[in-house]
Protein backbone atom coordinates (compact mmCIF):
# COMPACT_ATOMS: atom_id res chain seq x y z
CA UNK A 1 0.00 0.00 0.00
CA UNK A 2 1.16 3.47 -0.84
CA UNK A 3 1.30 6.01 1.95
CA UNK A 4 -1.31 8.69 1.87
CA UNK A 5 0.72 11.86 1.53
CA UNK A 6 -0.20 15.43 0.76
CA UNK A 7 1.17 14.84 -2.75
CA UNK A 8 -0.98 11.84 -3.53
CA UNK A 9 -4.10 13.62 -2.27
CA UNK A 10 -3.28 16.59 -4.51
CA UNK A 11 -2.87 14.24 -7.48
CA UNK A 12 -6.28 12.70 -6.85
CA UNK A 13 -8.05 15.99 -6.30
CA UNK A 14 -6.44 17.39 -9.45
CA UNK A 15 -7.41 14.50 -11.71
CA UNK A 16 -10.95 14.28 -10.33
CA UNK A 17 -11.44 18.01 -10.89
CA UNK A 18 -10.21 17.77 -14.48
CA UNK A 19 -12.39 14.76 -15.23
CA UNK A 20 -15.49 16.41 -13.76
CA UNK A 21 -14.77 19.56 -15.75
CA UNK A 22 -14.38 17.53 -18.94
CA UNK A 23 -17.42 15.37 -18.41
CA UNK A 24 -20.00 17.91 -17.20
CA UNK A 25 -20.87 19.43 -20.60
CA UNK A 26 -21.62 15.99 -22.09
CA UNK A 27 -23.49 14.91 -18.99
CA UNK A 28 -25.74 17.98 -19.25
CA UNK A 29 -26.54 17.08 -22.84
CA UNK A 30 -27.27 13.47 -22.03
CA UNK A 31 -29.53 14.23 -19.06
CA UNK A 32 -31.44 16.95 -20.90
CA UNK A 33 -32.12 14.68 -23.86
CA UNK A 34 -34.14 12.38 -21.57
CA UNK A 35 -36.09 15.16 -19.86
CA UNK A 36 -39.51 16.48 -20.65
CA UNK A 37 -39.66 19.54 -22.96
CA UNK A 38 -41.22 21.76 -20.27
CA UNK A 39 -38.61 20.70 -17.72
CA UNK A 40 -35.70 21.32 -20.07
CA UNK A 41 -36.96 24.81 -20.80
CA UNK A 42 -37.84 25.80 -17.25
CA UNK A 43 -35.04 24.48 -15.05
CA UNK A 44 -31.37 23.62 -15.26
CA UNK A 45 -30.49 19.97 -15.94
CA UNK A 46 -28.58 19.79 -12.66
CA UNK A 47 -31.86 20.13 -10.77
CA UNK A 48 -32.61 16.46 -11.57
CA UNK A 49 -30.13 15.53 -8.86
CA UNK A 50 -32.54 16.73 -6.20
CA UNK A 51 -34.72 13.73 -7.05
CA UNK A 52 -33.01 11.49 -9.63
CA UNK A 53 -35.15 8.42 -8.89
CA UNK A 54 -38.41 10.14 -9.74
CA UNK A 55 -38.95 8.06 -12.88
CA UNK A 56 -41.80 10.25 -14.12
CA UNK A 57 -39.37 12.98 -15.17
CA UNK A 58 -37.57 10.76 -17.71
CA UNK A 59 -38.92 10.39 -21.24
CA UNK A 60 -37.95 9.34 -24.77
CA UNK A 61 -40.31 11.92 -26.32
CA UNK A 62 -37.54 14.17 -27.61
CA UNK A 63 -35.83 11.25 -29.31
CA UNK A 64 -39.06 10.15 -30.98
CA UNK A 65 -39.78 13.68 -32.11
CA UNK A 66 -36.31 14.38 -33.50
CA UNK A 67 -36.11 11.01 -35.26
CA UNK A 68 -39.45 11.65 -36.96
CA UNK A 69 -38.44 15.11 -38.11
CA UNK A 70 -35.68 13.86 -40.40
CA UNK A 71 -32.95 12.53 -38.13
CA UNK A 72 -33.81 8.87 -38.85
CA UNK A 73 -33.51 9.48 -42.58
CA UNK A 74 -30.24 11.38 -42.07
CA UNK A 75 -28.89 8.55 -39.93
CA UNK A 76 -29.37 6.10 -42.82
CA UNK A 77 -27.77 8.63 -45.18
CA UNK A 78 -24.76 9.00 -42.91
CA UNK A 79 -24.23 5.24 -42.96
CA UNK A 80 -24.65 5.13 -46.74
CA UNK A 81 -22.08 7.93 -47.08
CA UNK A 82 -19.56 6.72 -44.49
CA UNK A 83 -19.17 3.03 -45.23
CA UNK A 84 -18.31 3.27 -48.94
CA UNK A 85 -16.23 6.42 -48.32
CA UNK A 86 -14.21 4.32 -45.87
CA UNK A 87 -13.88 1.18 -47.99
CA UNK A 88 -13.19 2.73 -51.40
CA UNK A 89 -9.87 4.48 -50.70
CA UNK A 90 -8.34 1.51 -48.89
CA UNK A 91 -7.48 -0.74 -51.82
CA UNK A 92 -6.20 2.07 -54.02
CA UNK A 93 -4.05 3.35 -51.18
CA UNK A 94 -2.75 -0.13 -50.31
CA UNK A 95 -1.53 -0.72 -53.87
CA UNK A 96 0.20 2.67 -53.92
CA UNK A 97 1.73 2.11 -50.48
CA UNK A 98 3.09 -1.25 -51.66
CA UNK A 99 4.76 0.36 -54.66
CA UNK A 100 6.21 3.16 -52.54
CA UNK A 101 7.63 0.63 -50.10
CA UNK A 102 8.78 -2.36 -52.16
CA UNK A 103 9.28 -1.18 -55.75
CA UNK A 104 11.96 1.03 -57.22
CA UNK A 105 11.02 3.49 -59.93
CA UNK A 106 12.04 6.99 -61.04
CA UNK A 107 10.17 9.77 -59.24
CA UNK A 108 9.33 7.62 -56.23
CA UNK A 109 10.62 10.06 -53.63
CA UNK A 110 9.16 13.10 -55.35
CA UNK A 111 5.72 11.49 -55.59
CA UNK A 112 5.79 10.44 -51.96
CA UNK A 113 6.81 13.93 -50.91
CA UNK A 114 3.78 15.14 -52.83
CA UNK A 115 1.64 12.84 -50.69
CA UNK A 116 3.25 14.10 -47.46
CA UNK A 117 2.69 17.68 -48.61
CA UNK A 118 -0.95 17.01 -49.49
CA UNK A 119 -1.58 15.77 -45.94
CA UNK A 120 -1.44 19.35 -44.77
CA UNK A 121 -3.27 21.07 -47.64
CA UNK A 122 -6.63 22.55 -46.64
CA UNK A 123 -9.39 20.70 -48.48
CA UNK A 124 -11.07 24.00 -49.26
CA UNK A 125 -8.59 24.68 -52.08
CA UNK A 126 -10.32 21.97 -54.11
CA UNK A 127 -13.95 22.90 -53.52
CA UNK A 128 -14.91 25.49 -56.13
CA UNK A 129 -13.39 23.70 -59.15
CA UNK A 130 -14.74 20.36 -57.90
CA UNK A 131 -18.23 21.84 -57.57
CA UNK A 132 -17.95 22.94 -61.21
CA UNK A 133 -16.59 19.56 -62.28
CA UNK A 134 -19.32 17.62 -60.48
CA UNK A 135 -21.85 20.13 -61.78
CA UNK A 136 -20.92 19.24 -65.35
CA UNK A 137 -22.01 15.67 -64.66
CA UNK A 138 -24.98 16.60 -62.43
CA UNK A 139 -23.30 14.92 -59.47
CA UNK A 140 -23.73 17.64 -56.86
CA UNK A 141 -26.10 16.51 -54.13
CA UNK A 142 -25.58 12.82 -54.93
CA UNK A 143 -23.86 10.20 -52.79
CA UNK A 144 -21.40 9.54 -55.62
CA UNK A 145 -20.03 13.09 -55.31
CA UNK A 146 -19.26 12.72 -51.58
CA UNK A 147 -17.87 9.21 -52.04
CA UNK A 148 -15.46 10.50 -54.68
CA UNK A 149 -14.56 13.58 -52.65
CA UNK A 150 -13.91 11.61 -49.47
CA UNK A 151 -11.97 8.95 -51.35
CA UNK A 152 -9.67 11.60 -52.76
CA UNK A 153 -9.40 13.63 -49.56
CA UNK A 154 -8.61 10.51 -47.51
CA UNK A 155 -6.07 9.20 -50.02
CA UNK A 156 -2.91 11.04 -48.86
CA UNK A 157 -3.47 9.95 -45.26
CA UNK A 158 -4.24 6.36 -46.26
CA UNK A 159 -1.12 6.08 -48.42
CA UNK A 160 0.97 7.71 -45.70
CA UNK A 161 -0.21 5.44 -42.87
CA UNK A 162 0.01 2.26 -44.95
CA UNK A 163 3.42 3.04 -46.42
CA UNK A 164 4.88 3.81 -42.99
CA UNK A 165 3.47 0.55 -41.67
CA UNK A 166 4.68 -1.52 -44.62
CA UNK A 167 8.15 0.02 -44.29
CA UNK A 168 8.28 -1.47 -40.79
CA UNK A 169 7.62 -5.02 -42.05
CA UNK A 170 10.68 -7.29 -42.32
CA UNK A 171 12.20 -6.88 -45.79
CA UNK A 172 13.48 -10.49 -45.87
CA UNK A 173 9.97 -11.86 -46.29
CA UNK A 174 9.47 -9.91 -49.49
CA UNK A 175 12.89 -10.87 -50.77
CA UNK A 176 12.33 -14.56 -50.16
CA UNK A 177 8.93 -14.35 -51.86
CA UNK A 178 10.67 -12.84 -54.86
CA UNK A 179 13.26 -15.62 -54.88
CA UNK A 180 10.42 -18.16 -54.76
CA UNK A 181 9.17 -16.61 -57.98
CA UNK A 182 6.12 -14.78 -56.61
CA UNK A 183 5.04 -11.78 -58.65
CA UNK A 184 4.44 -8.40 -57.00
CA UNK A 185 0.73 -8.97 -57.46
CA UNK A 186 0.87 -12.26 -55.55
CA UNK A 187 3.17 -10.88 -52.85
CA UNK A 188 0.79 -7.98 -52.36
CA UNK A 189 -2.36 -10.08 -51.95
CA UNK A 190 -0.94 -13.10 -50.12
CA UNK A 191 1.67 -11.50 -47.86
CA UNK A 192 1.47 -7.76 -47.50
CA UNK A 193 -2.29 -7.24 -47.22
CA UNK A 194 -2.73 -9.87 -44.47
CA UNK A 195 0.28 -8.52 -42.60
CA UNK A 196 -0.99 -4.95 -42.83
CA UNK A 197 -4.37 -5.61 -41.21
CA UNK A 198 -3.61 -3.50 -38.09
CA UNK A 199 -2.76 -0.48 -40.20
CA UNK A 200 -5.72 -1.07 -42.52
CA UNK A 201 -8.02 -1.26 -39.51
CA UNK A 202 -6.51 1.87 -37.98
CA UNK A 203 -7.06 3.81 -41.16
CA UNK A 204 -10.57 2.43 -41.65
CA UNK A 205 -11.66 3.50 -38.17
CA UNK A 206 -10.09 6.88 -38.52
CA UNK A 207 -11.61 7.53 -41.94
CA UNK A 208 -15.03 6.28 -40.85
CA UNK A 209 -15.14 8.64 -37.87
CA UNK A 210 -13.81 11.46 -40.00
CA UNK A 211 -16.49 11.00 -42.65
CA UNK A 212 -19.31 10.42 -40.16
CA UNK A 213 -18.37 13.56 -38.20
CA UNK A 214 -17.66 15.68 -41.27
CA UNK A 215 -19.79 18.75 -41.86
CA UNK A 216 -17.79 20.70 -44.44
CA UNK A 217 -17.59 18.18 -47.30
CA UNK A 218 -21.23 17.17 -46.79
CA UNK A 219 -22.29 20.81 -46.77
CA UNK A 220 -20.51 21.56 -50.05
CA UNK A 221 -21.22 18.44 -52.10
CA UNK A 222 -24.39 17.00 -50.55
CA UNK A 223 -26.14 19.95 -48.94
CA UNK A 224 -29.55 19.85 -47.35
CA UNK A 225 -32.45 17.81 -48.63
CA UNK A 226 -33.35 14.19 -49.00
CA UNK A 227 -29.73 13.00 -48.96
CA UNK A 228 -28.53 15.11 -46.04
CA UNK A 229 -26.38 13.51 -43.34
CA UNK A 230 -26.70 13.78 -39.53
CA UNK A 231 -24.23 16.64 -39.15
CA UNK A 232 -26.25 18.77 -41.60
CA UNK A 233 -29.54 17.87 -39.90
CA UNK A 234 -28.10 18.81 -36.51
CA UNK A 235 -26.71 22.06 -37.90
CA UNK A 236 -30.15 22.94 -39.30
CA UNK A 237 -31.78 22.11 -35.97
CA UNK A 238 -29.38 24.49 -34.24
CA UNK A 239 -30.06 27.15 -36.87
CA UNK A 240 -33.85 26.84 -37.03
CA UNK A 241 -34.80 25.75 -33.54
CA UNK A 242 -31.91 27.04 -31.48
CA UNK A 243 -33.99 27.37 -28.32
CA UNK A 244 -35.58 23.89 -28.49
CA UNK A 245 -32.93 22.37 -26.28
CA UNK A 246 -34.87 19.14 -25.70
CA UNK A 247 -34.64 18.46 -29.46
CA UNK A 248 -31.09 19.69 -29.87
CA UNK A 249 -29.74 17.56 -27.05
CA UNK A 250 -31.52 14.42 -28.28
CA UNK A 251 -30.47 15.13 -31.88
CA UNK A 252 -26.86 15.68 -30.90
CA UNK A 253 -26.79 12.48 -28.92
CA UNK A 254 -28.17 10.49 -31.86
CA UNK A 255 -25.36 11.79 -34.08
CA UNK A 256 -22.84 10.84 -31.41
CA UNK A 257 -24.01 7.25 -30.86
CA UNK A 258 -22.12 5.65 -33.74
CA UNK A 259 -18.77 7.38 -33.14
CA UNK A 260 -19.01 6.69 -29.40
CA UNK A 261 -19.78 3.03 -30.06
CA UNK A 262 -16.84 2.75 -32.43
CA UNK A 263 -14.74 4.62 -29.91
CA UNK A 264 -15.54 2.46 -26.92
CA UNK A 265 -15.37 -0.88 -28.76
CA UNK A 266 -12.23 -0.18 -30.81
CA UNK A 267 -10.42 2.31 -28.63
CA UNK A 268 -7.04 0.66 -29.09
CA UNK A 269 -7.17 0.78 -32.90
CA UNK A 270 -8.68 4.24 -32.74
CA UNK A 271 -5.74 5.52 -30.74
CA UNK A 272 -3.35 3.95 -33.21
CA UNK A 273 -5.19 5.57 -36.10
CA UNK A 274 -5.07 8.95 -34.43
CA UNK A 275 -1.40 8.61 -33.69
CA UNK A 276 -0.59 7.63 -37.23
CA UNK A 277 -3.01 9.92 -38.95
CA UNK A 278 -2.74 12.92 -36.80
CA UNK A 279 -2.00 15.32 -39.62
CA UNK A 280 -5.23 14.69 -41.52
CA UNK A 281 -7.32 17.68 -42.45
Amino acid at each position, binding site marked *: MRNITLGSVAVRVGIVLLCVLWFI*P*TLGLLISSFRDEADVKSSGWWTVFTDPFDVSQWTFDSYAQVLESGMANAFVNSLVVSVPATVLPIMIAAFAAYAFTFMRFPGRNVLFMLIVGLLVVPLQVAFVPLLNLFGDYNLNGTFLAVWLAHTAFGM*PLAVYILRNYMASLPQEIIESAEIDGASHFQTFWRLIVPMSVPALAAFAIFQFLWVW*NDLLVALIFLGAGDNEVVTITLRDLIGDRGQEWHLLTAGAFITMTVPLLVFFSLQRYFVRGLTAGSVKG
Partner: protein
Amino acid sequence: MSDDPFLKIVNGLVAIVLGVGGTAALYWVLNFLVGLLPGKWDKRIKPFVFIGPAILVVTVFLVYPALVTVMYSFADANSIDWVGFQNYVDLFQDDEFIGTLVNNLLWILIVPAGSVIVGLLVAVLADRLKALPERIAKSVIFMPMAISFVGASTIWGFVYATRFAQGDQQIGLLSAISTSLGFEPVAWLRISDYNLNDLLLIIIMVWLQAGFAMVLLSSAIKGVPDDTVEAARIDGASEIQIFFKVVVPQIWPTVIVVFVTILILVMKVFDIVYVMTGGRAGTSVLANTFVLELFEFGDAGRAAAVVVVLMVAVIPVMIYQMRQFKKQEAR
Protein backbone atom coordinates in the same frame (compact mmCIF):
# COMPACT_ATOMS: atom_id res chain seq x y z
CA MET B 1 -37.97 6.76 -54.88
CA SER B 2 -34.86 7.97 -53.13
CA ASP B 3 -36.99 8.44 -50.01
CA ASP B 4 -36.90 4.73 -49.39
CA PRO B 5 -34.12 4.00 -46.90
CA PHE B 6 -33.94 0.43 -48.17
CA LEU B 7 -33.06 1.64 -51.67
CA LYS B 8 -30.39 3.91 -50.26
CA ILE B 9 -28.77 1.07 -48.38
CA VAL B 10 -28.84 -1.09 -51.51
CA ASN B 11 -27.35 1.86 -53.35
CA GLY B 12 -24.51 2.02 -50.83
CA LEU B 13 -23.89 -1.72 -50.97
CA VAL B 14 -23.81 -1.64 -54.77
CA ALA B 15 -21.28 1.18 -54.56
CA ILE B 16 -19.07 -0.89 -52.27
CA VAL B 17 -19.27 -4.00 -54.45
CA LEU B 18 -18.83 -2.10 -57.72
CA GLY B 19 -16.19 0.20 -56.31
CA VAL B 20 -14.09 -2.46 -54.63
CA GLY B 21 -14.71 -5.09 -57.32
CA GLY B 22 -14.14 -2.58 -60.10
CA THR B 23 -10.87 -1.34 -58.66
CA ALA B 24 -9.68 -4.90 -58.03
CA ALA B 25 -10.57 -5.83 -61.62
CA LEU B 26 -8.81 -2.73 -62.89
CA TYR B 27 -5.60 -3.64 -61.09
CA TRP B 28 -5.86 -7.24 -62.25
CA VAL B 29 -6.36 -6.27 -65.91
CA LEU B 30 -3.61 -3.65 -65.87
CA ASN B 31 -1.26 -6.06 -64.14
CA PHE B 32 -2.10 -8.76 -66.69
CA LEU B 33 -1.57 -6.43 -69.67
CA VAL B 34 1.76 -5.17 -68.34
CA GLY B 35 2.76 -8.78 -67.72
CA LEU B 36 2.49 -9.42 -71.46
CA LEU B 37 5.24 -6.91 -72.13
CA PRO B 38 8.81 -8.16 -72.47
CA GLY B 39 10.66 -8.52 -69.13
CA LYS B 40 12.44 -5.20 -68.96
CA TRP B 41 9.32 -3.14 -69.69
CA ASP B 42 7.26 -5.20 -67.32
CA LYS B 43 9.57 -4.20 -64.47
CA ARG B 44 9.64 -0.57 -65.52
CA ILE B 45 5.92 -0.07 -65.93
CA LYS B 46 4.49 -2.22 -63.14
CA PRO B 47 5.20 0.28 -60.32
CA PHE B 48 3.09 2.81 -62.17
CA VAL B 49 0.23 0.33 -62.37
CA PHE B 50 0.37 0.10 -58.58
CA ILE B 51 0.58 3.82 -57.78
CA GLY B 52 -1.23 5.08 -60.90
CA PRO B 53 -4.81 5.06 -59.61
CA ALA B 54 -3.88 6.72 -56.29
CA ILE B 55 -1.92 9.45 -58.06
CA LEU B 56 -4.74 9.87 -60.58
CA VAL B 57 -7.38 10.30 -57.86
CA VAL B 58 -5.24 12.78 -55.94
CA THR B 59 -4.41 14.74 -59.09
CA VAL B 60 -7.95 14.98 -60.44
CA PHE B 61 -9.68 15.75 -57.15
CA LEU B 62 -7.01 17.64 -55.21
CA VAL B 63 -3.99 18.95 -57.11
CA TYR B 64 -5.71 20.11 -60.29
CA PRO B 65 -8.60 21.82 -58.45
CA ALA B 66 -6.08 23.53 -56.17
CA LEU B 67 -4.32 25.04 -59.19
CA VAL B 68 -7.65 26.12 -60.69
CA THR B 69 -8.56 27.75 -57.37
CA VAL B 70 -5.41 29.86 -57.56
CA MET B 71 -6.51 30.97 -61.05
CA TYR B 72 -10.04 31.73 -59.84
CA SER B 73 -8.63 33.96 -57.13
CA PHE B 74 -7.52 36.34 -59.90
CA ALA B 75 -10.94 36.30 -61.57
CA ASP B 76 -14.33 37.87 -60.83
CA ALA B 77 -17.27 36.53 -58.85
CA ASN B 78 -18.34 34.13 -61.59
CA SER B 79 -14.82 33.16 -62.68
CA ILE B 80 -15.30 34.78 -66.11
CA ASP B 81 -13.14 37.91 -66.34
CA TRP B 82 -9.67 38.42 -64.95
CA VAL B 83 -9.45 41.05 -62.24
CA GLY B 84 -5.77 40.82 -61.36
CA PHE B 85 -5.07 41.24 -57.65
CA GLN B 86 -8.39 43.00 -57.01
CA ASN B 87 -9.78 40.19 -54.81
CA TYR B 88 -6.71 40.27 -52.60
CA VAL B 89 -6.67 44.08 -52.46
CA ASP B 90 -10.35 44.07 -51.43
CA LEU B 91 -9.75 41.46 -48.77
CA PHE B 92 -6.80 43.18 -47.14
CA GLN B 93 -8.57 46.56 -47.17
CA ASP B 94 -11.53 45.02 -45.39
CA ASP B 95 -11.27 45.49 -41.63
CA GLU B 96 -13.49 42.51 -41.02
CA PHE B 97 -11.08 40.27 -42.94
CA ILE B 98 -8.14 41.59 -40.91
CA GLY B 99 -10.18 40.73 -37.82
CA THR B 100 -10.64 37.24 -39.23
CA LEU B 101 -6.90 36.84 -39.64
CA VAL B 102 -6.38 38.00 -36.05
CA ASN B 103 -8.95 35.42 -34.92
CA ASN B 104 -7.14 32.65 -36.78
CA LEU B 105 -3.95 33.76 -35.07
CA LEU B 106 -5.68 33.64 -31.68
CA TRP B 107 -6.91 30.10 -32.40
CA ILE B 108 -3.50 28.81 -33.46
CA LEU B 109 -1.78 30.44 -30.49
CA ILE B 110 -4.16 29.17 -27.82
CA VAL B 111 -5.52 25.79 -28.90
CA PRO B 112 -2.25 23.87 -29.44
CA ALA B 113 -0.68 25.29 -26.28
CA GLY B 114 -3.83 24.79 -24.21
CA SER B 115 -4.31 21.22 -25.41
CA VAL B 116 -0.69 20.33 -24.74
CA ILE B 117 -0.81 21.79 -21.23
CA VAL B 118 -4.05 20.00 -20.26
CA GLY B 119 -2.94 16.80 -22.00
CA LEU B 120 0.39 16.85 -20.17
CA LEU B 121 -1.27 17.56 -16.84
CA VAL B 122 -3.67 14.63 -17.19
CA ALA B 123 -0.93 12.33 -18.48
CA VAL B 124 1.32 13.13 -15.51
CA LEU B 125 -1.41 12.94 -12.86
CA ALA B 126 -3.03 9.78 -14.26
CA ASP B 127 0.37 8.09 -14.42
CA ARG B 128 0.40 8.15 -10.61
CA LEU B 129 -2.95 6.41 -10.23
CA LYS B 130 -3.67 2.68 -10.15
CA ALA B 131 -4.44 0.98 -13.45
CA LEU B 132 -8.24 1.15 -13.36
CA PRO B 133 -8.66 4.75 -12.23
CA GLU B 134 -5.97 5.72 -14.74
CA ARG B 135 -7.95 4.11 -17.54
CA ILE B 136 -11.21 5.74 -16.48
CA ALA B 137 -9.64 9.18 -16.16
CA LYS B 138 -8.03 8.90 -19.57
CA SER B 139 -11.24 7.70 -21.22
CA VAL B 140 -13.13 10.70 -19.84
CA ILE B 141 -10.59 13.17 -21.21
CA PHE B 142 -10.26 11.26 -24.49
CA MET B 143 -13.96 10.75 -25.20
CA PRO B 144 -14.56 14.15 -26.85
CA MET B 145 -12.21 13.00 -29.66
CA ALA B 146 -15.04 10.80 -30.93
CA ILE B 147 -17.55 13.67 -30.97
CA SER B 148 -18.06 15.71 -34.12
CA PHE B 149 -17.48 19.45 -34.14
CA VAL B 150 -21.21 19.95 -34.68
CA GLY B 151 -21.99 17.67 -31.72
CA ALA B 152 -19.46 19.53 -29.58
CA SER B 153 -21.01 22.82 -30.68
CA THR B 154 -24.40 21.61 -29.44
CA ILE B 155 -22.94 20.46 -26.15
CA TRP B 156 -21.23 23.79 -25.52
CA GLY B 157 -24.04 25.83 -27.00
CA PHE B 158 -26.12 24.42 -24.18
CA VAL B 159 -23.46 25.38 -21.62
CA TYR B 160 -23.45 28.95 -23.02
CA ALA B 161 -27.25 29.25 -23.40
CA THR B 162 -28.83 32.24 -21.68
CA ARG B 163 -32.42 33.22 -20.89
CA PHE B 164 -33.35 36.84 -20.54
CA ALA B 165 -37.03 36.92 -19.55
CA GLN B 166 -37.72 38.12 -16.02
CA GLY B 167 -38.20 35.20 -13.65
CA ASP B 168 -36.86 32.57 -16.06
CA GLN B 169 -34.41 30.12 -14.55
CA GLN B 170 -31.10 29.83 -16.35
CA ILE B 171 -30.75 26.47 -18.11
CA GLY B 172 -27.20 27.02 -19.37
CA LEU B 173 -24.49 26.19 -16.87
CA LEU B 174 -22.36 29.28 -17.46
CA SER B 175 -25.26 31.71 -17.10
CA ALA B 176 -26.54 29.84 -14.08
CA ILE B 177 -23.18 30.33 -12.40
CA SER B 178 -22.79 33.96 -13.43
CA THR B 179 -26.32 34.99 -12.42
CA SER B 180 -26.06 33.18 -9.10
CA LEU B 181 -22.98 35.31 -8.45
CA GLY B 182 -25.20 38.34 -8.99
CA PHE B 183 -24.34 39.28 -12.58
CA GLU B 184 -26.95 40.23 -15.19
CA PRO B 185 -27.68 37.56 -17.82
CA VAL B 186 -25.64 38.14 -21.01
CA ALA B 187 -25.51 36.61 -24.50
CA TRP B 188 -22.03 35.14 -24.17
CA LEU B 189 -21.25 34.64 -27.84
CA ARG B 190 -22.06 38.26 -28.70
CA ILE B 191 -19.49 39.76 -26.33
CA SER B 192 -16.57 40.69 -28.54
CA ASP B 193 -14.75 42.76 -25.89
CA TYR B 194 -11.33 41.25 -25.23
CA ASN B 195 -12.31 38.58 -27.79
CA LEU B 196 -14.36 36.87 -25.10
CA ASN B 197 -16.64 35.16 -27.64
CA ASP B 198 -13.62 33.89 -29.58
CA LEU B 199 -12.18 32.51 -26.37
CA LEU B 200 -15.44 30.71 -25.55
CA LEU B 201 -15.30 29.02 -28.97
CA ILE B 202 -11.60 28.23 -28.55
CA ILE B 203 -12.33 26.44 -25.26
CA ILE B 204 -14.48 23.98 -27.23
CA MET B 205 -11.53 23.07 -29.42
CA VAL B 206 -9.21 22.61 -26.43
CA TRP B 207 -11.87 20.38 -24.87
CA LEU B 208 -11.88 18.29 -28.05
CA GLN B 209 -8.13 18.11 -28.63
CA ALA B 210 -6.70 17.70 -25.11
CA GLY B 211 -7.43 13.96 -25.25
CA PHE B 212 -5.35 13.56 -28.36
CA ALA B 213 -2.44 15.40 -26.73
CA MET B 214 -2.84 13.31 -23.60
CA VAL B 215 -2.68 9.97 -25.44
CA LEU B 216 0.55 10.77 -27.24
CA LEU B 217 2.20 12.51 -24.29
CA SER B 218 1.19 9.76 -21.90
CA SER B 219 2.90 7.10 -24.00
CA ALA B 220 5.96 9.34 -24.27
CA ILE B 221 6.07 9.77 -20.49
CA LYS B 222 5.79 6.02 -19.98
CA GLY B 223 8.79 5.68 -22.32
CA VAL B 224 11.02 7.82 -20.12
CA PRO B 225 13.59 5.43 -18.55
CA ASP B 226 12.99 4.95 -14.82
CA ASP B 227 16.67 5.15 -13.93
CA THR B 228 16.93 8.76 -15.14
CA VAL B 229 14.06 9.69 -12.81
CA GLU B 230 15.45 7.58 -9.95
CA ALA B 231 18.91 9.12 -10.28
CA ALA B 232 17.45 12.61 -10.01
CA ARG B 233 15.38 11.53 -7.01
CA ILE B 234 18.46 10.17 -5.24
CA ASP B 235 20.21 13.47 -5.96
CA GLY B 236 17.42 15.06 -3.93
CA ALA B 237 15.49 16.72 -6.74
CA SER B 238 11.86 17.61 -6.02
CA GLU B 239 9.07 16.05 -8.09
CA ILE B 240 8.52 19.35 -9.90
CA GLN B 241 12.23 19.69 -10.67
CA ILE B 242 12.29 16.11 -11.95
CA PHE B 243 9.33 16.83 -14.21
CA PHE B 244 10.78 19.98 -15.81
CA LYS B 245 14.46 19.00 -15.89
CA VAL B 246 14.34 15.25 -16.51
CA VAL B 247 10.97 14.27 -18.02
CA VAL B 248 10.13 17.27 -20.20
CA PRO B 249 13.43 17.33 -22.13
CA GLN B 250 13.00 13.63 -22.95
CA ILE B 251 9.43 13.98 -24.22
CA TRP B 252 10.02 17.28 -26.03
CA PRO B 253 9.97 15.75 -29.56
CA THR B 254 6.49 14.36 -28.84
CA VAL B 255 5.35 17.73 -27.50
CA ILE B 256 6.40 19.31 -30.81
CA VAL B 257 4.61 16.64 -32.88
CA VAL B 258 1.39 17.12 -30.89
CA PHE B 259 1.70 20.88 -31.11
CA VAL B 260 2.22 20.92 -34.88
CA THR B 261 -0.56 18.39 -35.51
CA ILE B 262 -3.11 20.42 -33.55
CA LEU B 263 -1.81 23.61 -35.17
CA ILE B 264 -2.52 22.21 -38.63
CA LEU B 265 -6.03 21.19 -37.59
CA VAL B 266 -6.75 24.56 -36.02
CA MET B 267 -5.59 26.60 -39.01
CA LYS B 268 -8.50 25.07 -40.91
CA VAL B 269 -11.04 25.32 -38.09
CA PHE B 270 -14.52 25.73 -39.54
CA ASP B 271 -17.43 23.77 -38.08
CA ILE B 272 -17.44 25.24 -34.57
CA VAL B 273 -17.48 28.84 -35.75
CA TYR B 274 -19.90 28.16 -38.59
CA VAL B 275 -22.39 26.34 -36.37
CA MET B 276 -22.20 28.49 -33.23
CA THR B 277 -21.98 32.04 -34.52
CA GLY B 278 -21.76 31.84 -38.30
CA GLY B 279 -18.86 34.25 -37.90
CA ARG B 280 -21.03 37.02 -36.46
CA ALA B 281 -19.92 39.42 -33.71
CA GLY B 282 -16.35 39.34 -35.00
CA THR B 283 -15.77 35.61 -34.56
CA SER B 284 -15.13 34.58 -38.17
CA VAL B 285 -12.12 32.51 -39.22
CA LEU B 286 -10.71 31.96 -42.72
CA ALA B 287 -12.51 28.69 -43.48
CA ASN B 288 -15.81 30.21 -42.37
CA THR B 289 -15.28 33.36 -44.44
CA PHE B 290 -14.61 31.09 -47.42
CA VAL B 291 -17.97 29.36 -47.10
CA LEU B 292 -19.77 32.67 -46.55
CA GLU B 293 -18.15 34.27 -49.61
CA LEU B 294 -19.00 31.26 -51.72
CA PHE B 295 -22.59 30.54 -50.66
CA GLU B 296 -23.97 33.72 -49.03
CA PHE B 297 -22.34 36.24 -51.34
CA GLY B 298 -21.81 33.97 -54.36
CA ASP B 299 -18.36 35.38 -55.04
CA ALA B 300 -16.13 32.55 -56.25
CA GLY B 301 -13.25 34.97 -56.81
CA ARG B 302 -13.10 36.27 -53.26
CA ALA B 303 -13.76 32.80 -51.86
CA ALA B 304 -10.82 31.48 -53.86
CA ALA B 305 -8.62 34.34 -52.65
CA VAL B 306 -9.52 33.52 -49.03
CA VAL B 307 -8.44 29.88 -49.48
CA VAL B 308 -5.25 30.91 -51.21
CA VAL B 309 -4.44 33.09 -48.17
CA LEU B 310 -5.09 30.03 -45.99
CA MET B 311 -2.96 27.87 -48.28
CA VAL B 312 -0.06 30.33 -48.13
CA ALA B 313 -0.31 30.35 -44.34
CA VAL B 314 -0.11 26.55 -44.32
CA ILE B 315 2.98 26.36 -46.58
CA PRO B 316 5.59 26.90 -43.83
CA VAL B 317 4.02 24.09 -41.80
CA MET B 318 3.98 21.92 -44.91
CA ILE B 319 7.70 22.50 -45.52
CA TYR B 320 8.37 21.72 -41.87
CA GLN B 321 6.43 18.45 -42.16
CA MET B 322 8.33 17.40 -45.30
CA ARG B 323 11.66 18.14 -43.61
CA GLN B 324 10.64 16.16 -40.54
CA PHE B 325 9.67 13.24 -42.74
CA LYS B 326 13.02 13.31 -44.54
CA LYS B 327 14.85 13.38 -41.21
CA GLN B 328 12.79 10.48 -39.94
CA GLU B 329 13.55 8.46 -43.09
CA ALA B 330 17.26 9.17 -42.84
CA ARG B 331 17.37 7.58 -39.38
